[in-house]
């Protein structure tokens, strides 16, 4: 009887330790997962911010202003346009 009890006690202690370890592992993994989630969010936010920036820099009105102002560009005059037929040479 005493032997059995001792055996059961040993099993119980082993189980308890196992539980503690797995709980610890689960929590560690969970926090790792959370960290990665947070990183994914951060990258997503960065992407959004960059998209916003790209849109702002690429605003049509801004491009037009720079093209006509700083670069001295202007719409092509009709007299200087030649239309090339794609199949003309064949």
């Amino acid at each position, binding site marked *: 009887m005493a032997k059995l009890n001792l055996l059961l006690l040993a099993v119980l202690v082993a189980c308890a330790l196992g539980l503690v370890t797995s709980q610890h592992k689960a929590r560690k993994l969970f*926090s790792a997962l*959370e960290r990665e989630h947070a990183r994914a969010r951060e990258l997503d936010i960065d992407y*959004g911010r960059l998209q*916003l920036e*790209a849109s702002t820099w*690429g*605003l049509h009105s801004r491009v037009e202003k720079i093209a006509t102002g700083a670069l001295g560009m202007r719409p092509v005059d009709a*007299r200087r346009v030649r239309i090339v037929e794609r199949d003309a040479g064949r």
Partner: protein
Amino acid sequence: MSAAAQGLVRLPVWRARFVLAALAAAFAVLAARSLYLQAMRTDFLQEKGDERYSRVLEVPATRGRILDRNGDALAVSTPVKSVWAIPGDVELSRAQRNKLAALLGLEPAELDRKLSDKSRDFVYLKRQISPDTAEAVTALGVKGIYEHPEYRRYYPGGEVTAHVVGFTGVDDAGQEGVELAHQATLGGKPGSRRVIKDRLGHIVEDVESIRAAQDGTDLQLSIDSKIQSIAYSALKAAVEANRAKAGGIVVLDARSGEILALANVPSFNPNNRARLNGAQLRNRVVTDLFEPGSTLKPFTIALALETGRIGPSTLVPTAPGTLSIASYTIRDVHPAAALTVSQVLQKSSNVGAAKIALALPREAMWDLFRREGFGTAPEIGFPGATGGKLRPWKTWKPVEQATMAYGHGISVSLLQLARAYTVFARDGELVPLSLVKTGATPGGEKVLSSQTAREVRAMLELAVQPGGTGPRARIMGWRVAGKTGTAHKLENGAYATDKYLASFVGLAPASAPRLVVAVMIDEPAGRNNYYGGTVAAPVFAQVMQGALRLLGVPHDAPLEPIDPAEGDEAREST
């Protein structure tokens, strides 16, 4: 030996039993109590226990982005911080107070006022500040001041896309435009997680994720931000040049039914909505009704052609330039003895259109208008889309039938009008509209026969040639077809003599239509310059040319410069 002799008192048996019973009862009470606590109140107690150390935190979800058809951002949420305080806990030195107020952009006095009520335990000091500023606030290290993350919506397109995209409120829920219409998919579902916190509120451990945060889905609109920009700036310039009250423009892809641009003037900056008025907020293209005037004539004529009784070259007597029905007189600005059906459209003759209409059954006219989509709101999933007014044909009097032929007595939105013109662009098919990028070529509803649609298209092409009412709508390199409209505005049930609504609806390239553009200018204030042909048509030309070039639509006309002043500006009265 007796008990007495041994000095022992023989106690009555009942006393021992009593003590035993009392102890048993006490144990029973304890057992019952523990049963009660363990079995029946366990949830409550567990909860109370957890409250000491574990907290459920909300995990915010990001709102979906709104993109244009090329993937350029039109609305993006970025994280910001809100700073709040527990007034009772805050201890500020004078220097700290001034520094904090400066960081938050508040007057020191205002900061004091916010912190004055010590009984409250939550006061927002400033919402939605940049993360950098929030960091500086934290660096001050003041007790009792906290911050929490929030999202703020940015609209890089600003006033250009304001009416289409709409905006969200401070709580990140859509309030106008697409933001409101697609709230269900754009808005994310915040999640929650359980953490263990120590006495100071630091997170010691993540316990579990109760519900993962679900970010909103991105939405790609059919809007092309470049065309939108061209449309908005051309419209704005025209409204300013003509000192008009307002204006609207819409660009449709005739093939897919997608709305490539939709702009209104006056507009507003959705990033800074401090001073907004109703006029700025109104999305006139979608929600405002107006009497379209002559831009409706092509439909009357199409119906007449459809009956087969007349052809494009049938003569319609229009002498003497007026037509009296009951007590009402319809007038032409340029009286002519007789005009062909083509010329009625080209010269925009009211008398001609009225006479053609009076030969048609009321029911057929009503039916065509209805099938063109007038009277029912277009299904574009946009808040406030209006259906317009189309009265049942049985209530039409002859004079009303005549005036409806040239677009009076019926009211439509600019979007409906533009959509109706897709029948001329698609050989008789009315296309369903979409504000979301589809990339598909939906089948339309057949409203007119292909032959009729082509004949009317040819007439519309004549209307923008010199001798028509809209030569200023011509553009270099592409053939254009379209119709001008100049309607008296309806005010308090009567037509105002000095208030006009100039419009132009057209399509291009006429050989294989790709785009439909509709322009409306409300109350142009120019003296003798309030016609659709002089006010709205130039906007049409500018936008159409820019859009065709951007889309790389092949030319169907020689590249010869067009003199906009060429040709007699035929004026019209509706």
